[in-house]
């Protein structure tokens, strides 16, 4: 089956709500368990600059 990257419109309709829902529940991108498995340096970077899930125009 041929693979094509999904459109921004479909990503907005189908993917964004799934990630936003988790973010709203946690008030952060990753769960505390996920953060505990992540290098401290990376967690610090995440906390400094992470935004809520957003679409990319790239």
């Amino acid at each position: 089956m041929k693979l094509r990257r999904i459109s921004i419109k479909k990503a907005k309709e189908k993917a964004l709500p799934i990630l936003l829902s988790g973010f709203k529940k946690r008030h952060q991108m990753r769960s505390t368990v996920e953060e505990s498995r992540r290098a401290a340096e990376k967690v610090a970077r995440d906390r400094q600059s992470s935004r809520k899930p957003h679409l990319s125009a790239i």
Partner: protein
Amino acid sequence: MIDNLQESLTLALSKLDEKFRKDPESLHFAISIVFSSIFKKSGLSCIIVGGQSAAYWLRLPGSNDIDFVSPDLQKIANILEQCGFTKSSDLSFRYVHPTTNIMIELVGEQIAIADIKTPGSVLVEPSDIDDALVRSLMPGPSEVLDPVLVFINYLDASSHDSIWFTFENEGALAVERAKALLALYKEYIIDGLRDRYKAGEISERFRDLLDKKFNIVLR
């Protein structure tokens, strides 16, 4: 080989930093696409894996680091250092650029996900990229992990016997990424899973997980 690899990477870093400085996640995503393309054009394999591969397929950036897999790790490491990246003091595979704060991790010489023996990646042509600046900085295709493998990589987090077990109360980004990938690429992912199951690359544990958590039955 590109005549001046270091110059191309440094120029891309500067231009992308200027455009995406206020959005570090998009900046990391853009750098992953462009660097993979430049390395590949110069004859060095450089596959985008981890969070940036999910960002590509989902169109949702969400990581402040870049993971590359390459059999040319040492060459890439040397070039990154020539471009001003500094090696992390505690981990030899982690590189950070002091001005832009870009973090690149050279995570392995080959794709290593669960029991997968056949690696899978997809070429991303400049025409697949919507942003004009990113597209203009790509001398050719970049290479990104196949969405079936991105899905399998996150699938493990859905298992009660995984190290993520206690995620239940608050969810987990990994599980949400798996669900979102499936929502967007269902047919492709299921076809890919079936092929890999027939090839003996999907463990019974993963097969059960696909059935119980995602209603996907592999035969």
